[in-house]
C-alpha cells in the first residue's frame, strides 16, 4: 500500500476517473445517487423530518392529556395518533437516522471507497419516501389510520377500515428497505475493510451496526410474515388469529414480539456504538474494555431472540413460559451492565471536556440506565402484571428511546456534523439545546412512572382526576421538548450554511479514534479510493 495522504488520493483519483467524479447537478443527483455520503444525507434528513412529524403527533397526544376529559380530539383519532406516532418514530425517524449514520460513517471508518452494493443502497433509501407517503395517506381514508397501537394486534387491528392493507404494505416496503440496508452494511463490513482493518480493530459503531444488521435481516421477514397473515385473515378467509377456525390471536403477539424485541435492540445497539465512540474522544483515553464491548453487544443481540414473550405476561401463558421469559430477560442486564461499566471506566480519570456531543453522551449513560432499570423491574413476570399497559411502561420505553436512542442521535450529529459540513456547529446553541432537551425530557417522562404505578392505563385519551397534576406537568415537558428541537434543526442548518472552519481532526486527539478524522472536513465526494496507509490503521486505538 502506498502511504499517500487523503489529498493526494483525491488528486490521484482525479487523474484516473474523469467521468462521474463529483456529484451530478440538480435534483436528479439525489434520485440517482449511488454515493454513500449522498445517501447518508438523504437518510438523515428524512429521519429529521419524520422526527418532527412523529413529534407533532406526540404533541397532539400530550395536548389531549394535558387535563382530564376530552378536549381536542375524539378517542378514535387519539388512537390513530398513538399508533402512527410510534410507527413513524421507530421506522421513520430513528431507523433511517441510524441508517444515515451507517452510510456516512462506515465506509469512512473502515477505509472503504463506498458501500459494497451502491445501487441497492439507493433503493434502500428510495423505498422510504414512498412508504411514508402511503402510511400518511391512511389518515385520510375511510375509517382513518390504523388505531390499534404500533403492535397492530388482532382482532382489534382487523377492525381498521380501508387503511389496513395500506398499513400492511407499508410494513412490507419498510421491511424490504431495512433488509437491503442491513445486507449492504454486513457485506460492506465483511468485504470492504481496508487491509489491516481487522474485525477487532473496527470502531464500536461499526461493530454494533453489524450486529444490528444481523438482527434486522433475521426479524424483519418475520414481521412481514405476521402482517401478511393479518392481511389474509382479513381478506382471504384464513384463520391464523381466529380461534373459531382453530387459530389463536396470541400467535400474532408471539410473531410480532419475535420481531419486536430484537427491533428495540435495533434501535439501541447503534446508539451504544455512538456513545462508545464519543466518550473516549472527550475523555482523551482509549475505550475501556474494547473486546468486552464487542462480546457484550453480541450477547445482547443473541439474547434479544429468546426473550420476546416478556411483552405478553398478562396474555395467558403456561407458568413455565412466564418463568423462563422472566429469567432469560434478567440476563440481558449483565452485558448491558458491562457496557455501562466500560463507559464509566473510560471516563474515569480522563481529561474530560464537555462539548455538546459529550453532554448528550453522558446524559445518555445516566438516563438510558434508568430506563434499563425499569426494564429489569418489568422483566419480573408477577410484578409486570401490575405494570402492564400502564404509563409505567410508557415511561420505561421512552426513557430508553428518547434519552437513549434519540440522545445518541443528537450526540452523533453534533460529533460528526463538523466532519460532514466542514463547519463547527454553534456550541452555545448546542449547549442550550442540550439543557432544554435534557430537563424537558425528564419533566415529560419522569412523572409518567408515578401515574403508571398508580394505575393510569396507556392509550386512553381520558383519565381519572387524581392523575391530573402529573399529566399536566408531563405535557408541559413534552411541549418544551418538542419546540427545543427547532434549535437542533437550526444548528444543523447554520452549520451547513457556514461557520468556523473545522480541521480534519475536528476534536483534539480524535485522529487516534478513527479513520474518519484523517479525512478533510468536509471529506471529498469519494474517499479512500485508495486504502489508508497501514501506519494510520495500526495507530488507532
Amino acid at each position, binding site marked *: 500500500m502506498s502511504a499517500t495522504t487523503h489529498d493526494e488520493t483525491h488528486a490521484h483519483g482525479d487523474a484516473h476517473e474523469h467521468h462521474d467524479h463529483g456529484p451530478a447537478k440538480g435534483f436528479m443527483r439525489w434520485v440517482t445517487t449511488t454515493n454513500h455520503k449522498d445517501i447518508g444525507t438523504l437518510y438523515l434528513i428524512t429521519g429529521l423530518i419524520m422526527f418532527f412529524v412523529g413529534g407533532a403527533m406526540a404533541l397532539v397526544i400530550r395536548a389531549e392529556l394535558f387535563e382530564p376529559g376530552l378536549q381536542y380530539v375524539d378517542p378514535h383519532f387519539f388512537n390513530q395518533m398513538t399508533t402512527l406516532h410510534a410507527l413513524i418514530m421507530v421506522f421513520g425517524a430513528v431507523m433511517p437516522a441510524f441508517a444515515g449514520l451507517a452510510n456516512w460513517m462506515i465506509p469512512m471508518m473502515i477505509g472503504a471507497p463506498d458501500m459494497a452494493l*451502491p445501487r441497492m443502497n439507493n*433503493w434502500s433509501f428510495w423505498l422510504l419516501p*414512498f412508504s411514508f407517503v*402511503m402510511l400518511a395517506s391512511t389518515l385520510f381514508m375511510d375509517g382513518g389510520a390504523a388505531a390499534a397501537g404500533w403492535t397492530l394486534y388482532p382482532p382489534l387491528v382487523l377492525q381498521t377500515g380501508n387503511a389496513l392493507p395500506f398499513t400492511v*404494505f407499508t410494513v412490507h416496503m419498510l421491511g424490504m428497505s431495512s433488509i437491503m440496508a442491513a445486507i449492504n452494511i454486513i457485506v460492506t463490513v465483511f468485504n*470492504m475493510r481496508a487491509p489491516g482493518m481487522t474485525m477487532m480493530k473496527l470502531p464500536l459503531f461499526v461493530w454494533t451496526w453489524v450486529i444490528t444488521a444481523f438482527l434486522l435481516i433475521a426479524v424483519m421477514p418475520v414481521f412481514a410474515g405476521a402482517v401478511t397473515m393479518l392481511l389474509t385473515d382479513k381478506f382471504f378467509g384464513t384463520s391464523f388469529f381466529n380461534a373459531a377456525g382453530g387459530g*389463536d390471536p*396470541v400467535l400474532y403477539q408471539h*410473531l410480532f414480539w419475535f420481531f419486536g424485541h430484537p427491533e428495540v435492540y435495533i434501535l439501541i445497539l447503534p446508539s451504544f456504538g455512538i456513545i462508545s465512540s464519543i466518550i473516549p474522544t472527550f475523555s482523551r483515553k482509549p475505550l475501556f474494555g474494547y473486546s468486552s464491548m464487542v462480546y457484550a453487544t453480541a450477547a445482547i443481540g443473541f439474547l434479544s431472540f429468546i426473550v420476546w414473550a416478556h411483552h405478553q405476561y398478562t396474555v395467558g401463558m403456561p407458568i413455565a413460559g412466564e418463568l423462563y421469559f422472566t429469567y432469560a430477560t434478567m440476563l440481558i442486564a449483565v452485558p448491558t451492565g458491562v457496557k455501562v461499566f466500560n463507559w464509566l471506566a473510560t471516563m474515569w480519570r480522563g481529561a474530560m471536556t464537555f462539548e455538546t456531543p459529550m453532554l448528550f453522551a453522558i446524559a445518555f449513560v445516566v438516563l438510558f440506565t434508568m430506563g434499563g432499570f425499569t426494564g429489569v423491574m418489568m422483566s419480573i413476570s408477577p410484578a409486570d402484571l401490575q405494570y402492564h399497559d400502564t404509563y409505567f411502561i410508557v415511561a420505561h420505553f421512552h426513557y430508553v428511546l428518547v434519552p437513549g436512542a434519540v440522545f445518541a442521535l443528537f450526540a452523533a450529529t453534533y460529533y460528526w456534523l463538523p466532519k460532514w459540513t466542514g463547519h463547527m456547529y454553534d456550541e452555545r446553541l448546542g449547549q442550550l439545546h442540550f439543557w432544554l432537551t435534557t430537563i424537558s425530557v425528564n419533566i415529560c417522562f419522569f412523572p409518567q412512572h408515578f401515574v403508571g404505578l398508580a394505575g393510569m392505563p396507556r392509550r386512553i385519551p381520558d383519565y381519572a382526576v387524581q392523575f391530573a397534576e402529573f399529566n399536566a406537568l408531563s405535557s408541559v415537558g413534552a411541549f418544551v421538548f418538542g419546540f427545543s428541537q427547532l434549535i437542533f434543526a437550526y444548528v444543523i442548518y447554520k452549520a451547513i450554511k457556514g461557520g468556523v472552519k473545522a480541521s480534519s481532526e475536528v476534536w483534539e486527539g480524535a485522529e487516534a479514534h478513527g479513520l474518519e478524522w484523517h479525512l478533510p472536513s468536509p471529506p471529498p465526494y*469519494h474517499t479512500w479510493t485508495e486504502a489508508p496507509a497501514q501506519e494510520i490503521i495500526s495507530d488507532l486505538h
Partner: protein
Amino acid sequence: MATTTKDAYYIPHKAQWPIFGSIGLSTLLAGFANFLNGASYGSTMMIVGAGVLITMLFGWFGTVIAESESGIFNDQVDRSFRMGMAWFIFSEVMFFAAFFGSLYYTRVLSESWLAGNESFSLGATRQLWDGFTAAWPNNGPAHIGGLEEGKFEPMGAWGLPALNTLILLSSGATVTWAHWGLLAQNRAQLIKGLIATVVLGFSFVIFQAIEYHEAYTEMGLTLGTGIYGSTFFMLTGFHGLHVTIGAIFLTVILFRCVRGHFSAKHHFAFEAAAWYWHFVDVVWLGLFIFVYWL
C-alpha cells in the same frame, strides 16, 4: 495501487432503476390495497405497477449483466454479490420460519389450549368452545370452511407430494451436474443439466397446481378451511411462488449459458440461482415432513 479499472472496486454511478422500482412497487401495492378495499381502479393500478416493476427488473438486471460481461467486476465485487445473495437467502429462511413457527405453535401448543387441556385456558374454553377436542388436522371449533358440516379431507403425503419431492430432489442433483459441467468447461453438460432442472422445476409447479385444483374442487380444502387450510396453503403457496421465481431465475441463467456467458471462474449468477434452488429444495423437505407427512 488501484491503477487499472479491473483492480478498482467497481462503483456504479447514476442508478436510474431503483426509483422505477419504488414507483412500480408502491403503485402495485397501493393498487392491490385499493383492489382489496373494493375500488374499481385497483386492478388497473396493479397492472401498471407490475409493468413498471417488471421493466425495472429487466433494466436493472440487464445493466448488471452487461457490466459483468464487460469484465469490470473484480473478485472483491464478486464476493460482495455472493455475500449479498447468501444474506438475502437467510432473510427468506426467516420469512418461512414465521410460517413454520405458526404451524408449530398451533399444532403443538394452541390447539391443546383451545381444547381446554391446560389449567390456564380451561375456563375460557369451556365457556366458548365446549366439546372441542384437539386433533390435527382441524378447522377449528366452528368448523370454518370445508364441505357440508365443515368436513374436509387433509392432503396426504404419498401421492403427488411424494412425486414432487422426487422431482425437486432430482432437480437439485441436475443443477449440481450442470455446475460440474460449467467448472469442467463442458458446455453440453451445463446446458443439458440446466434444461433438465428448469423442466423439473416447472413440472413441480404444474403438479402443485393440479394438487390445489383437487383440494379446492374435491376435498373441501381451501385457504379458508380453518387453521389447517390457512397453514397448508400459505406455506405451500409461498413455497410454490419461490419455486416459480427460482425456475424463472434458472431459465434466465439457461439463456445466458446458451449465449455463452459465464466461465469456469466467473459465474456468480449461476451459483446464486443454484443456491436459491437448493434453498427452495430444503424448504420443500420441511413442508413434506411437517405439512404433508406428520
